[in-house]
Structures are given as C-alpha cells and as structure tokens.
C-alpha cells in the first residue's frame, strides 16, 4: 500500500469536478451517491408535502383536480422507491463503509461501481423526461392494463426504472464479490460487522430479484410500443401475471430497503450501548433468513386479485414467517441495550427510533398478512401507514442515523450534536403524528390513492398533514446539521465514538487507499466488554 503525504486524504487526493466524475474510489462514489440520494429525497419529499397539503381538507385543494394529484403521487412513489430508498443505504453508506469494514482497499469492481452510479443518473434523467409527456399517473407499481393505456410519460418512467435496475444489479454483484474475495487477513465470516451481513443479504436480493423487474418492465414497454398483449386482457393476456412478476421483485425489494437498515442499526445499538452485541450469529443468519424467505411471499399483494384460496393461505403463512427472523433481530438489539452504558447521541436516537417505529411497522405487517383482515384493510390508508412505518420509520431512520454516525469518518468533521438531536425530535414526533392517524383512517375505510375524501375523515387528515410539515422541518434541520458540519465542524479524531470496527482505525477522512497498511483482524467486531 502506498503511503500518503501528511494531510492528504481521499477528498483532496485529486481535485476538480472531472476527478470526481471519473473516480474509481469507492469513498468518492459513495459521496456522489450521497449527494444524488439527498437531491432525489428533496424532490420526493417536496411531492409528499404537496400531497399532504392537498389532503389537508376535503375537496379540491392546492393540486386542483385529481389528475395532477395522481402525477404527484406517482412521482413521490417512484422517486422515493427507485432513487432514494433502494440506493440509499447500500449504494451510499454501503459503498463508503463496506470496504473499510472489511479492511479492503476498494470494492471488487471499481469501474462497475462507477457505472452503477451513471446508470442511476441516466435512469433518473429518462424518468424525468416523462414530465414533458403529460407525466405519469399509474402509481409506482405500474399496474396493467391501466399502465398500457395511460399517458405517454409512462413509457419514459418505465424505461428509466429499467435502467436504474442495472445500477442496483451492479451494486449487488459488486458487494457479493467484495465480501467473498476482499476480506483482510483474519476477517473470517463471523468477524464481519453485522452491517456487512445486512449488505450481503441485500446484494443477493439485488442480483436475483432485480432482473425479474427488468423483464417485467421490458414486457410492459413491449406492451405499450408493440401491443404484444401478454398483460392485456383484450388480447388474451393476464394483468394479474404482471402483478405476480412485479411483486416477485418488489417484495424482495422491500428487504433490499430494510436489510441494510437493520445492519446500520446493529452498528449503532452496539456502539452506543458500549456492549458486545447480543446474539451475533442469530442476527447474521436472520439477515440471510429474511432474504431467503422474502422470495416466497410476493402473493400477499394479491390476496384480493383472484388468486386461489390455497395460494392465499400459503402466502399468508410464509409472510408471517418473515416475522420470526425480524423478531429475533429486534429482541437481540433490545438485549444488547440491556445493562449497557447507553449514550443518547443523535445516531443512537435515530437507531432507537428505528426500533420503535419498525416494530410498529412489522407488527401491522403481520396484521395485513392475515387474509381475513387484509380483505378489509387492502387499498386503505392502513396499508399506507404500514409501509411508511417500515420504509420511513425503518429505512430513513437508519439512513439518518448512519449519516450522522459515519459523517466524521466521511468528511473528517464533527457536526453540531445538539441540533442533530432537535432534528430527531422533529422527525420522530412528526412521523408519528403523520402516520399513526392513517392507521385509524384505514381502519375506518378510507381508500388510498384518492385526492379527495368524505368529510368524516377530515380531522385525522388535517392532523396527518400537520405531522408531515413537522417531518419536513426535521429533515431540513438535519440537512442544516450536515451543511453546518461540513463548513464549520471541528476536526474529527479517527475514532470519535470509540467504536471497534475497522473503519475507525483508518484516518478521518481516510487516505486514498483506505489504510496505511493492510489491517489484520484478531478479534470480533464488537469487543466492548
């Protein structure tokens, strides 16, 4: 390994925009993903605020009639899913941290890593073209046959999502190869940090599930451009086949979103409890277990789509099975905190926010998995609340905690801890104010995806809208924390949290080749006490 000049690190190793756009350094690509994801998050968040503003009161509101609302809803969903939450933790935090966690100098295929970023950017650009073709109003799920007939913009969004799929496959492929081939001396599988286990399970899903979405979107394009009729009932095709294909990817995709989040939380909980993680192997294997089971649960999206009752019962059972490894993780995290010396630092607050909110999201998921209840709850706000508790309460909480946790390592600066804690209070409280009422609304029967509703639902909707402003404020404060930390933060030491994983033995920020000398591992990742 080359030795770096004093004061030289990956950020100032080379200079200029071109050195960034052509970089093969996983840390720089991670930072580029960070900027990209934050920009898309702002766009998706803006759409969300507009939706909630429209829904603040019954009747036509700020978005006028339903057509514009449907476009905003679709944009919010498509951007948040394909461009924020899926690349969020793996491609951004994972890219930066994975090689450092393993004591490697880079990911296995640096060029492919850069290509994956360009796939995301190009795919996103193609998606945005749709805005010039009467937008897209299908929702992010593109259900046929409506998506075959509706506005031209749909073609572009579907094609954009197809290209973004390559980004995801490349990242997954890269991470699997990295974990298998680039562990440093002494880094056995059971000495890997649990974030690596989370990323590894995610990567397998990315490699094996994303191509099914790819072919589904290609067929939808063929449907729109050539009228092949495979999903078109007019030509003998079956629209439900689209749903099967779509959810064969998109249900595992839910775990693509949440498994790395669970990995981040494992790091946060153990570090800030100053205690060896409870049940390391159980957490590691439960990540893999969730990944495996997640391939066999997609049918729970079709309980009311005319699928056979036997299939419904089987999918219901398998869906509940996911609860087991998830509960194993949750109990292990709580057991880790038990008798720990807990520091309520802002990353830990976000980590505990994850525990609290994700548990609610998970338990309501079990409710939805019971077929009898699902007949009542499907396509109501109960479902909306459930998956926001998992996606936002789970993934975004962990992402925020992860950003704060690794911020000193990434940029060599400390952020303002006090303001970061304020941001957590806003996000956490705002989140519950926004989405808890939606459980009640859903149980009352309010259907999702409409721009208007009966006056009986008005009070809770107003409450929900107020909550969404609180979340928005919280994330703006978090953005301020990041920018303020970059500009005015004090220099960070190599290991500000006293954590035990390898990345903290590298300098803050790390040098171009990560470590001065290849590290050698002689103990597990969490030897606190």
């Amino acid at each position, binding site marked *: 390994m080359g030795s770096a000049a004093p004061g030289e690190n990956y950020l100032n190793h080379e200079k200029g925009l071109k050195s960034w756009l052509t970089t093969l350094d996983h840390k720089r690509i991670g930072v580029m993903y960070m900027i990209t994801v934050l920009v898309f998050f702002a766009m998706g968040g803006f759409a969300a605020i507009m939706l909630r503003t429209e829904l603040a009161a019954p009747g036509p509101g700020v978005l006028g009639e339903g057509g514009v609302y449907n476009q905003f809803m679709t944009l919010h969903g498509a951007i948040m899913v394909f461009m924020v939450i899926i690349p969020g933790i793996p491609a951004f935090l994972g890219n930066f941290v994975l*090689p450092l966690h393993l004591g*490697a*100098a*880079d*990911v*296995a*295929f*640096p060029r*492919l890593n850069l290509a994956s970023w360009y796939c995301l950017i190009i795919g996103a650009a193609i998606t945005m073209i749709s805005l010039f073709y009467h937008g897209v109003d299908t929702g992010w799920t593109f259900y046929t046959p409506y998506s075959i007939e509706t506005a031209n913009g749909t073609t572009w969004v579907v094609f954009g999502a197809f290209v973004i799929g390559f980004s995801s*496959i490349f990242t*997954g*492929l*890269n991470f*699997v*190869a990295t974990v*298998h*081939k*680039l562990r440093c001396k002494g880094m056995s599988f059971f000495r890997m940090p649990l974030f690596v286990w989370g990323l590894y399970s995610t990567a397998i899903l990315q*490699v*094996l*599930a*994303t*191509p*099914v979405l*790819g*072919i*589904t979107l*290609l*067929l939808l394009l*063929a*449907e729109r451009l*050539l*009228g*092949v*009729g*495979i999903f*078109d009932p007019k*030509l*003998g*095709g*079956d629209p439900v*086949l689209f749903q099967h*294909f779509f959810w*064969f990817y998109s249900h595992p995709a839910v775990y693509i979103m949440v498994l790395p989040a669970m990995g981040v939380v494992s790091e946060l909980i153990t570090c800030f409890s100053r205690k060896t993680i409870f049940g390391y192997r159980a957490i590691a294997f439960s990540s893999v277990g969730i990944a495996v089971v997640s391939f066999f649960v997609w049918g729970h999206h079709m309980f009311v789509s005319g699928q056979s009752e036997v299939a419904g019962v089987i999918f219901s059972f398998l869906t509940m099975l996911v609860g087991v490894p998830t509960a194993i993780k949750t109990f292990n995290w709580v057991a880790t905190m038990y008798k720990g010396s807990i520091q309520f630092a802002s990353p830990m607050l976000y980590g505990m926010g994850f525990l609290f909110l994700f548990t609610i999201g998970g338990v309501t998921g079990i409710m939805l998995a019971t077929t009898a209840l699902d007949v009542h709850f499907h396509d109501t706000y109960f479902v909306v609340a459930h998956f926001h508790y998992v996606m936002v309460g789970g993934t975004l909480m962990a992402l925020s905690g992860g950003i704060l946790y690794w911020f000193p390592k990434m940029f060599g600066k400390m952020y303002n801890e006090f303001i970061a804690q304020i941001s957590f209070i806003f996000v956490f409280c705002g989140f519950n104010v926004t989405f808890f009422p939606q459980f009640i609304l859903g149980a009352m029967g309010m259907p999702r995806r409409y721009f208007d509703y009966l006056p009986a639902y008005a009070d809770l909707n107003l409450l929900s809208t107020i909550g969404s402003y609180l979340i928005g404020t919280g994330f703006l404060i978090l953005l301020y924390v990041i920018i303020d930390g970059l500009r005015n933060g004090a220099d960070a030491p190599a290991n500000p949290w006293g954590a035990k994983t390898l990345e903290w033995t590298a300098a803050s920020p790390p040098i171009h*080749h990560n470590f001065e000398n290849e590290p050698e591992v002689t103990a597990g990742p969490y030897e606190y006490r």
Partner: protein
Amino acid sequence: MSTDSATVTRKHAHHFKDGEHEFQSSILGVWLFLSSEILMFGALIVGYIIYSGRYPEMFAEGAAFLDKRYGAVNTVALLISSWTMVMGVRAAQTNNNKAVVKWLLATLFFASIFMVIKYLEYSHKFHLGIYPGKFFAPVGEAAGLDASTALYFSFYFCLTGLHGLHVLFGMIGILWVLLRARKNEFSENYYTPVEGVGLFWHLVDMVWIYLFPILYLI
C-alpha cells in the same frame, strides 16, 4: 514454463493481492451476472409455460407453424459455437493468441449463421403478416391461423428477440476479445476477458437449448 515472448505483461489492480486473486474475483462477478440473466429469462419462460398450460390448443397451433428445420440448424450452430469458444479459452490459457483469434472467428461465424437464419425466420413471418399482439394480421399460407395465436407469437417474438439481442451482445463481446487477442494480450497469467465472455456465450447457448424445445418441439 516460458511464455510467448510477445505476450504483454499486465499488472493487477491495486486492491487485489495478485493476478490469481483478481481472476477469481472477476469470474465470481461474471457468474453472479449470469445468475441475474437466468432469473430474467426464467421469468419470461415461466410466463410462457403458464400461458401454454392455459391455452394448449392455441400454443400447439402456433408451434406447428414454426419450421423445425430452421430451429434445428440453429441449435447445431450454437452448440458448435460453444465448442469453438471453449477451444478459444483453452488457446488463451496456453499462451496461443493466434489460435484464440482463429477459434473466436469460428465462433463468430457460427453465431452469424444463427442470426442469419433468425433473420430469415422473422422476415418470413412478417411477410405473412405474423406480427406480435395487436398487429397480428395473417395473410397467405398463414391466413388459416386462429386470431388467438397472436399471443403465442407475442411470446415467440419476446423470447427469441431477447435471446437474439443477447447473441448480438455476445458477438460484440467476442469481437472485443478477438481484437485484444490480436494484440497478444492474453497468456496463462491473464485470460479473464476470454473466460468471462466465454461463460456469457455458454449462457446464451444454454438459453437457446431451452427455447428450441419449448417453442418448436412441444
């Protein structure tokens, strides 16, 4: 063992321990990519199987219209091309770049036979008005086809079209490796691209081994 004196020596990327480490990692990456491809084709083939189970008569009528001889010749062409590809990889491992070029040219030749026959099949169908889905309007000797067979031909075009694209990608890959072999870039110490493109090519052949029976024979 002495190597070809003209062989270009090559340095492995900085994050690998040595050339062997880099080779193993790259091939693992190729296999992961291939598993991804299998899932993609797999989904489409599953769709085909579901529909053929649902409409057996329509699929039988459509399949009877395909020319088995074309399909059989194409199968043989691809099988031979797989063999020439293997010989190309072997030549790279034994430092014989000239033989790599020769074997890859042979592979390209058989791949071209496949594509030409595919072109003939497609143009014959278009000539008879057999287009996918809603453009299906058979005339001439195809006029007797039931309108519902449109769905069968939609699958035919999607499956063979996607596979044809992969043949094309494979040919581009082979050409790229071939040009590098002409510059004597490969040796027993470095033949990763030949091996990788070879694996991809075998997958393309393998997919056809499944497509031929389900489309033409059953």
